[in-house]
């Protein structure tokens, strides 16, 4: 009687991608396998060999090297190699030898191809060169929540109601009633024919403002304005908008942040509709939104600090609901901003109104909308140029002290590098900030820039946000034209390299060293963010968020869509693993950190992480030849 080897089948069953196969297929493979023993040090695949089987490591370990002898990878029990040669028919390019005594199973090429054709899971797993595996891994992570999956465009089922700015407020109210809408956009366009008013898509420049039903009540009726008051006198000018490819979740965050209930929806520069909070409230996962609302209602630092468990719970819940890292990052950053905003309001209540206009800055991850739990507080203040240190600095010093102490109380550690508004260096008038950025950009030194990259992720949180916006535009404009600055930044962005991958329960480092754990922030997300920042600054993007920066960079032609896509997937995947790890820490009442022990990673995660590290390593190499520090001006 012909039989399959039980030991072979049961071993395959424990490892991906075979663990996904049915018992019949496992029997078929176990019957077809051929086996060879290799003594440690002996060659398994030498350069130029034709590959006719998939290689599976039953026991022991192998080492794959580049032609020049540099270590490429180490693989252990249950891992496979040779699939690339099988798929492409190209003879062995990276030789393989046994690192330890190894028992290798050969799975015949024909059978491999049959599995590859028959099972999508199997094909996904072994596909090496393109990054679809990683991409699928990160999209399949976001499965659950509709609010996080539904894009704004899906909520738009009618064109935005618009009215010319010369119309009277009575005409506005009449049109609202007729169309049964709660808001109307006021447009500044040459009067066009009435019948085209819905068909023409006004672009951004023509949107003068927005009037909502509550504006009619609070601004017109409550103040007893005449019915022929022009719309332009009642509207909220230059309304905040949302792009139609954003998720509903992001739209809600924007609404909460700006305290509005209606957002004009744009497709690039064209108006495509309006989204109303009431429309989407039924989708709402209220958690993080309620936290923001609660924060803004608290009256002292103590009650704010009591919200910490809610914030943690919200983070854990988002991770469990498979939110994307972008969503988690925005939610946590919005919560962080709300803490800052509320603390500043409380400070202003205690100290009186500010003597000169100012803008409180978020720096680093909060500015990028990529904050997770328990990060350092990195902040600063831009003051109006009317600022006179002798007269005004005492006020802002006290304000900063209040806010930074408050932040420390609600879980944001003091910045170890003292990049905080309490430090007089980072509490300066706009002209000084501009001057500082000009110096960094115009006269770049790599060491100095190493500590100041955080300032290139900057966002206004409270006060005169335009001050921060001016800085952003200035940076975007100047940085893109300074090759030596970009070169220095690129050089710094290559400093923190990723590991090669994993081997057994170790992190495999370049040169073959093993480490017990990996800091996913320092070795993964942070260097990715660095790389993306260089490209974004080169393409004069004003975006701060890394995903948005990638889009801008691709649009500007500085990265191909496939390179950009790889970077996005790599960042998403590493970030999500990091988020899951922190969530796990919290659920087990441990302090969340970024250090991952490979032992807890599944084979699936390890492979994807390894791919993501590969993307990062390639992107760093690409920087090296794209931006040279000593070229040009």
């Amino acid at each position, binding site marked *: *009687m*012909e*039989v*399959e*080897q*039980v*030991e*072979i089948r049961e*071993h395959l069953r424990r490892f991906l991608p075979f663990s996904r196969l049915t018992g019949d297929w496992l029997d078929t493979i*176990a*019957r*077809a*396998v*051929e*086996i*060879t*023993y*290799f*003594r440690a040090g*002996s060659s398994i695949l030498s350069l130029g060999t034709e590959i006719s089987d998939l290689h599976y490591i*039953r*026991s*022991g370990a192998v080492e794959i090297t580049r032609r020049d002898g540099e270590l490429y990878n180490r693989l252990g029990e249950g891992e496979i190699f040779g699939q690339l040669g099988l798929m492409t028919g190209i003879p062995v390019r990276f030789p393989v030898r046994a690192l*330890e*005594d190894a*028992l290798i199973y*050969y799975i015949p090429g024909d059978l491999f191809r049959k599995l590859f054709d028959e099972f999508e899971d199997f094909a996904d797993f072994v596909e090496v060169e393109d990054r679809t595996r990683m991409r699928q891994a990160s999209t399949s992570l976001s499965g659950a929540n509709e609010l996080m999956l539904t894009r704004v465009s899906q909520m738009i089922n009618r064109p935005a109601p618009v009215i010319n700015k010369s119309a009277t407020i009575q005409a506005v109210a009449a049109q609202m009633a007729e169309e049964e809408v709660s808001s109307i956009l006021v447009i500044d366009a040459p009067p066009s024919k009435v019948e085209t008013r819905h068909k023409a898509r006004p672009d951004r420049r023509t949107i003068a403002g927005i009037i909502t039903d509550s504006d009619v009540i609070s601004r017109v009726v409550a103040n007893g304005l005449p019915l022929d008051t022009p719309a332009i006198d009642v509207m909220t000018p230059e309304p905040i908008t949302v792009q139609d490819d954003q998720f509903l979740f992001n739209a809600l965050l924007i609404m909460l942040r700006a305290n509005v209930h209606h957002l004009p929806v744009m497709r690039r520069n064209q108006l495509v509709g309006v989204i109303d909070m009431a429309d989407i409230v039924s989708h709402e996962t209220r958690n993080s939104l309620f936290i923001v609302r609660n924060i803004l209602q608290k009256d002292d630092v103590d009650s704010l600090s009591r919200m910490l468990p809610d914030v943690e719970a919200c983070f854990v819940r988002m991770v469990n609901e498979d939110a994307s890292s972008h969503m988690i990052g925005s939610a946590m950053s919005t919560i962080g901003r709300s803490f800052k905003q509320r603390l500043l309001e409380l400070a202003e209540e205690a100290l009186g109104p500010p003597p000169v206009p100012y803008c409180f800055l978020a720096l680093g991850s909060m500015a990028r909308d990529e904050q997770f739990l328990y990060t350092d507080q990195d902040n600063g203040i831009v003051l109006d140029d009317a600022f006179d240190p002798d007269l005004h600095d005492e006020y802002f010093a006290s304000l900063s002290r209040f806010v930074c102490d408050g932040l420390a109380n609600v879980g944001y550690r003091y910045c170890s590098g003292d990049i905080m508004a309490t430090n007089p260096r980072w509490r300066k008038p706009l002209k000084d900030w501009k001057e500082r950025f000009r110096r960094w950009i115009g006269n770049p030194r790599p060491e100095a820039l190493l500590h100041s990259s955080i300032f290139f992720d900057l966002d206004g949180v409270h006060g005169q946000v335009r001050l921060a916006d001016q800085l952003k535009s200035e940076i975007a404009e100047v940085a893109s034209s300074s090759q030596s600055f970009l070169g220095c930044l690129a050089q710094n962005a290559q400093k923190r390299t990723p590991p090669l991958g994993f081997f057994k329960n170790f992190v495999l480092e370049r040169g073959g060293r093993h480490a017990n754990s990996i800091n996913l922030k320092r070795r993964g997300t942070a260097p990715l963010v660095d790389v993306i920042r260089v490209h974004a600054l080169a393409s004069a993007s004003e975006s701060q968020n890394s995903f948005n920066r990638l889009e801008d960079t691709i649009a500007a032609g500085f990265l191909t869509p496939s390179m950009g896509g790889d970077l996005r997937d790599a960042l998403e995947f590493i970030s999500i693993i990091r988020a899951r790890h922190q969530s796990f820490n919290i659920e087990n009442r441990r302090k969340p950190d970024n250090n991952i022990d490979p032992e807890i990673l599944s084979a699936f995660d390890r492979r994807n992480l390894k791919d993501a590290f590969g993307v990062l390593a390639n992107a760093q190499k690409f920087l090296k030849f794209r931006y040279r520090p000593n070229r040009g001006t």
Partner: protein
Amino acid sequence: MIFSKSTAAPGNLVDIPEWPIRFRELTDTAITPSIREFYAAGVVSGDTPARQVPFVAVDFETTGLNCREHSIVSIGLVPFSLDRIQCHGCRHWLVRPRREIDPGTIPIHHITHSDLESAPDLGGILDELLGCMAGRIAVVHFRSIERRFLDQALKVRLNEGLEFPVVDTMELEARLHRRPTGFFAWLFARHRVSIRLSDSRMRYNLPLYRPHHAPTDALATAELLQAQFAHWYKPDTPIRELWI
């Protein structure tokens, strides 16, 4: 290494026949057709380098150790060469013993009465078994079992025994670990190295398998021979230095 491989010879060297000649003699004298075919398939010459030899790893599970009292209950085999073990040729038979199975051995090989009730007598699978072994050199771990039990079982059924060369992986281990005499023997007597199948495999970092399952033990034996070659023998060692 302190062991010299080429001169290492088993103690009972004088008993080893010149197998190709012996097979030709037996082809002429064998009566049973399947046995005659087995001999007619011949055997590689003693000079053949091991890497060119077709092997078949064979394992029997028996009801005890004495071939006159006990019976074969399970046979597993897997064909292989030093290059590759071919699992697609793996075979497994349960055979009904002539005597009642001793309940005490069930925990060892996990084979129960009901498993064996529907199994054929060894005579029923003999043609197939000999077909799988023909032309190949049998590899076993502890030769006293397979060769003696098969010989005895055939004598009982056909009045005709069976002779064939085997490579015994246990004996190869013994050559490495038990050969020295005098001072070394004294030393090894105190630190006697186990040459049981699973202990031998561990020395070569081969994985742990569930023991006493005939096809698994056959596979384990094939892997062990590959490992012994990878560590101690040149692949062009003449087969006559190994078979017995």
